[in-house]
């Protein structure tokens, strides 16, 4: 991606700092507090974007490319556009669990045989909230209490969960579909369950820093990332684009999105438009964007 941008604009020296969402947010806030923050463009998850918006650290930019995104994937006021979507799915180790014996739904996870067998991130706040939005507050909380009684294991990131799942540390895990797909492509014994609903999907927005010191270069970069060319590159590393003119597993057509509860979007009839087997067959997803 960086190479493609540099090739297109060789006169721009692109420097970047990369860290996980939490660390990146802390760094931005710390540097801002010290008056040393010099970031032009920020790519971070929706929860952190909400924090940055509250602290007035972002500025608007209505890219001409953002018109190619459906409602909910780009901010009407111009503060952000989602570069890709991140579905959280129930995955399993295929050596430890045969496909036929794998749970088919979230309800199946409550069976006694899966006690102490399911691993999830201790910061899966978006998943929790999206699940409750989808199921309804009362039903959702009731499910979470039952899941808690199953004594799930906790790790601090989905990357670690996926790696440990592949290593056979536990048979089931709640993790990102693209990570499972990438590991499966490399031959790891992992797969994910298409029938477990809802698939709560987060956004990865790209935004302009309010402190940006390179007003033209930053806009060029955002235009490139969310352009059709940029989106094809995004797909090349197993991420799902919401852009309407790029084949997407999250989009079956303009009518698929319907607003339900405030902040949540339920999409149904997901179509199969990719050749990536790990993204096949899901028929419903709940994309939660309540923090934006």
């Amino acid at each position, binding site marked *: *991606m960086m190479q*493609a941008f540099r090739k297109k*604009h060789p006169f*721009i020296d*692109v420097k970047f*700092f990369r860290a996980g969402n939490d660390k990146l947010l802390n760094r931005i806030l710390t540097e801002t507090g010290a008056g040393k923050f010099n*970031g032009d*463009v920020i790519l971070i998850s929706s929860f952190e974007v909400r924090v940055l918006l509250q602290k007035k650290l972002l500025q608007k930019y209505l890219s001409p490319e953002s018109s190619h995104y459906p409602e909910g994937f780009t901010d009407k006021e111009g503060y952000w556009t989602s570069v890709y979507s991140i579905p959280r799915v129930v995955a399993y180790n295929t050596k430890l669990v045969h496909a036929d014996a794998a749970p088919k739904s979230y309800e199946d996870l409550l069976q006694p045989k899966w006690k102490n067998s399911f691993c999830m991130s201790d910061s899966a706040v978006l998943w929790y909230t999206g699940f409750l939005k989808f199921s309804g507050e009362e039903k959702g909380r009731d499910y979470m209490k039952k899941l808690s009684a199953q004594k799930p294991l906790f790790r601090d990131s989905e990357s670690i969960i996926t790696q440990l799942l592949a290593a056979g540390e536990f048979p089931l895990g709640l993790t990102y579909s693209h990570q499972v797909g990438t590991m499966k492509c490399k031959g790891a014994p992992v797969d994910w369950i298409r029938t477990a609903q809802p698939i709560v999907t987060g956004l990865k927005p790209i935004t302009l820093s309010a402190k940006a010191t*390179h007003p033209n270069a930053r806009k*060029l970069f955002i235009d490139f990332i969310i352009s059709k060319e940029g989106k094809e590159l995004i797909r090349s590393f197993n991420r799902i684009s919401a852009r309407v003119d790029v084949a997407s597993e999250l989009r079956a057509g303009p009518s698929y999105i319907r607003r339900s509860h405030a902040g949540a979007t339920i999409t149904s009839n997901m179509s199969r438009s990719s050749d990536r087997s790990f993204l096949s067959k899901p028929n419903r997803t709940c994309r939660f964007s309540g923090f934006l």
Partner: protein
Amino acid sequence: MMLGSFRQSGPLPLIVFAICLGIFGFAAPIWSADDLAAGAKKEGELNLYLSTDLSDAKA
């Protein structure tokens, strides 16, 4: 009548108008891709803060 007003208030409004035109003319947003590229060339640098390793994405 306008000439009369101009005579009464002097050249000050005209000067203020010219200054404003100059300021806002230069500060106007640049929207064309070519202009953005020209501006970016002068800037020569870009600082990104990323929570994703975009270097994985290849053409």
